[in-house]
């Protein structure tokens, strides 16, 4: 009988404790509210400042971006990718031809005719970013984040939209080098950004 009454008392008291907690939250909703009205409000991008080299280096992994001006076509990122979502094709240019230098003053030797990233396959592991000698592939928000908007929603209406072609080489350029050097190589599909 004692246990029976004790159980009833425990039920009532613990219920009241629980109800007081939920009531407190109900009354203090203005203070406790954590909802974000998503399309109107957006989650603040976490500030990141690792201190030394890159003052505004933001690590948010939202989308891969390639600065084609700096790419030397070394394939390091494609090799690092665990899911093979980076496709690169290059053409060797004849010795002595100047196709520009990167911002690190490295002479380019290969013409990158194709640099496609399939973001449907990307697993956002960031592994391609590190081996790049020119720091030209990065998740938006990387070293050159000032140049690119950081966004979470790279949504597209169809799957093809998530395959990003980065190569900027024109057909003319390809033709110019393929004719002289490697005529057996089939002409690549033109990619204009």
């Amino acid at each position, binding site marked *: 009988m004692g246990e029976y009454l004790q159980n009833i008392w*425990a*039920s009532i008291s*613990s219920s009241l404790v629980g109800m007081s907690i939920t009531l407190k939250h109900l009354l203090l909703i203005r203070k406790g509210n954590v909802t974000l009205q998503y399309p109107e409000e957006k989650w603040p991008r*976490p500030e990141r400042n690792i201190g030394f080299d890159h003052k505004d280096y*933001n*690590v948010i*992994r939202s989308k891969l971006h390639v600065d084609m001006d700096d790419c030397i076509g070394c394939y390091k990122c494609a090799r690092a990718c665990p899911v093979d979502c980076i496709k690169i094709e290059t053409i060797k240019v004849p010795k002595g031809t100047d196709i520009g230098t990167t911002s690190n003053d490295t002479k380019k030797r290969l013409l990158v005719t194709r640099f496609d990233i399939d973001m449907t396959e990307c*697993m*956002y592991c*960031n592994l391609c970013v590190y081996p790049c000698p020119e720091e030209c592939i990065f998740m938006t928000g990387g070293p050159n984040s000032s140049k690119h908007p950081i966004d979470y929603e790279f949504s597209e209406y169809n799957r093809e939209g998530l395959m990003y072609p980065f190569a900027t080489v024109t057909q003319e350029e390809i033709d110019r080098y393929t004719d002289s050097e490697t005529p057996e190589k089939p002409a690549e599909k033109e990619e204009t950004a």
Partner: protein
Amino acid sequence: MGIVHGDEMVLNIGPQHPSTHGVLRLKVHTDGEIVSKITPYIGYLHRCFEKHCENLTYEQVIPFTDRCDYISSMNNNFGYVVTVEELMDIHVSEKVEHIRVIMAELNRIASHLLALGTFGMDVGAFTPFLYMFRDRENILDLFEMTCGARLLYNYMWIGGLSHDLPVGFVEKTYEFLDYFEPKIKENDDLLMYNKIFIERTADVGVLPPEVAISYGVTGPNLRGSGVQWDLRKDEQYSIYDRFDFEIPVGTGQMGTVGDCWDRYWVRTQEMKESIGIVRQALKQLPTEGDVQELVPKKIRPPKGSIYKRTESPRGDLGFYIISDGKPTPVRVKLRSPAFTALSALSAIAEGWMISDVIAILGSLDIVLGEIDR
């Protein structure tokens, strides 16, 4: 109960069911409400993790370990890199060790929050679930700030880390811990000490220690059964020997030792211990040093094999790695704690009611991503 025996009914719980924590199918034989036989069917989430690993380099495996136990990716990273480092005989710097411990413990809190919340939801309490998710978000914010990802981090590298701690991380973590500590008590009052919850979980699904050991159940589930077994203390790895923390074990406060309530209680206590570890690690954290200085240029472990276990939020997470000196492993076997925990389900849940089976399943805290790999 169960005096009258009618025909048994076969019921499929899952693969699409609100309480199977993923895609798990339980074939359940029921006599009225009483469950007489449970056969789990797994593999709906099989992603050939081990086959993948044979075709990837050592560092490329890390993002795949993230996806095994996606609730506690940091701990999976940790277990894998510690194993490869031991195989390669790399000793990482103090700073890296501290940051790893901080991350692993924060992720343990996040994982336990999710486990407790979903357990609460399995027994019908929805509000604590959202409170716990609210707090978990704060931890994910810290992770996002550190490495840019909220769920699958790929943060720990063999010999180092992918990013250094951002400026302000330490302060924000202290802020979070101060905020979070009172919340544990609130959640306990709201759910754990509620009489209905005690009725639903105490004495239900008792897992005796010898059965637990025979089934290879580890982690909070084993500790809930009263066995003091924690790899952080018993098979010391990383720098866990420097921290002062307790290993909570189930004592059967509300019923029998090893019931669902004890498993729940152990997790809440572990969160408190983890907070203590994070605080200590933050205090000792060396500020100087590059987190990537010891990352080897080429990761080619010497010929040999190794089996190493670490304590993930679900128990002993073991990696069996065989190397033949090439950049890709010959074999990576992941010994998943949730796999063994689920194998014990039929042993402890038979004879209980359907509602209890759901509660027991929730108390075992399984993650199908890790079971199916």
